[in-house]
């Protein structure tokens, strides 16, 4: 299974190179006070959502799946490798985001708690997206699944826009009354729920692939 995870990193190495070069550039600009934490959230989204989708596209291009299924790994092994790849990306993105928050806090460019909450929320959204998109990729293929990705990304934005237009306001002032520890613990549940969803998603993908013919 580790070979397949390595394969995903190797096929994505060109994308990874650019994904890493650009954040470093933005990181410097942020420390200089020219950008805020938004760049980290964008970077995390790109890394966690787009790279696993890209891996499906690379595989489809090479017709890799038929070969992968002929390896002595079993179908679950092949699916598991893709999920571990996504999970490693999420862990890395989370670690990178946390490190950036710490540096920005030390350099006095941002509030540590607020930044960390932003990172946790972003990570949670990304993991949930991946948990929904991976089974779709197995079922529909990466091209058709991409349409659903756009729906998942834009639907909440449109809903929020409509809510504002309709004068619907969600009162979040109760958050101000919570202690820092309670806030952190509450927000930490979001990525954890994402991980749980990823586990369920794995079994759904396995069931799809078990029925698939190559």
């Amino acid at each position, binding site marked *: 299974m580790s*070979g397949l995870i390595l*394969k995903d990193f*190797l096929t994505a190495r060109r994308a990874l190179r650019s994904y890493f070069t650009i954040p470093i550039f933005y990181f410097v600009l942020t420390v200089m006070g020219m950008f805020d934490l938004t760049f980290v959230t964008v970077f995390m989204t790109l890394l966690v959502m787009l790279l696993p989708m890209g891996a499906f596209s690379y595989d489809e291009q090479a*017709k890799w799946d038929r070969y992968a*299924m002929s390896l002595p790994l*079993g179908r679950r092994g092949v699916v598991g490798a893709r999920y571990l790849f996504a999970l490693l990306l999420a862990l890395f993105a989370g670690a990178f985001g946390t490190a950036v928050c710490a540096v920005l806090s030390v350099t006095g460019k941002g509030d540590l708690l607020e930044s960390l909450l932003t990172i946790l929320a972003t990570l949670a959204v990304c993991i949930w997206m991946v948990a929904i998109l991976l089974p779709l990729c197995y079922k529909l293929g990466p091209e058709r699944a991409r349409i659903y990705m756009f729906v998942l990304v834009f639907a909440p934005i449109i809903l929020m826009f409509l809510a504002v237009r309709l004068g619907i306001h969600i009162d979040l002032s109760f958050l101000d009354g919570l202690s820092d520890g309670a806030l952190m613990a509450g927000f930490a549940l979001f990525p954890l729920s994402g991980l749980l969803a990823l586990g369920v998603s794995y079994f759904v993908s396995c069931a799809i692939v078990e029925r698939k013919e190559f």
Partner: protein
Amino acid sequence: MNNAIEIRGLCKSYGDFSLQNIDLTLPGGSILGLIGENGAGKTTTMKCILNLIRRDAGEITVLGRDSIAQEREIKQDVGLVMDECFFHDVLRPLDVGRVLAPAYRDWDAGLFRDYLDKFGLPEKKYIKEFSRGMKMKLSLAAALAHHPRLLILDEATAGLDPVVRDEILEEFLGFICDEDHSILISSHITSDLEKAADYIAYLHGGRVVLSAAKDDILDNYGRVGCTREQLAAIDPAELVRVRRETFGCEALVADRAAFRRRYPDLTVDKIALEDIMLFIGKGEEL
């Protein structure tokens, strides 16, 4: 010697095409050549062996083990080369070795590098820069580097020039020198199978229409050239297929010595596998 592959009553239906009661045996230590037209069911049969598709009925045993219950153990001992290279263009042979090594218990990195050297494949060159022949050689190196006991080759020599094809065939023959090794190979290039195969199975319309030792086929089958009147005088039971042309007729017979004894006035020639395919594929049954 045990059989490397045993297929009994294999059925698989796609609606417009179906494999019907396929029975095939690949004796250990030998090469079975699978021939047939496009869409005859060769690749479908191979996919069933590898469990890439679900069969509707039948049993398949590979290296003495059930192909479904013991799929993963079997695949440790099987090398696969298909008609195209499945490795991503952005990988290099070096990467392919690193990707496949953890998958196989007996992956031999030294042997893989030896094959790369032998086939003249630069280990740090991207696969997108490889020719078709180089890609097929890389697939073969990957298939051989984990010391498989069975090679499954689906049109592995298709589209290659005669020099590369010959090199790859040499490799197959080298592989089969070990009596524990076996090869199932499908190919349209019947001349390659005449050189290498021990057994031939001909799939036509999803059925096995001919399955025998290659030497028996080539020693016994024959082509009769005759006029329409002469053809009418032959017992139809003697003829496997007939082709009627503008200037005469040709017929395929399964036992040319017996035919010659019975019809000494008619000429019976030896026949190549390709011509047998043409007779069965395009000829008429009497």
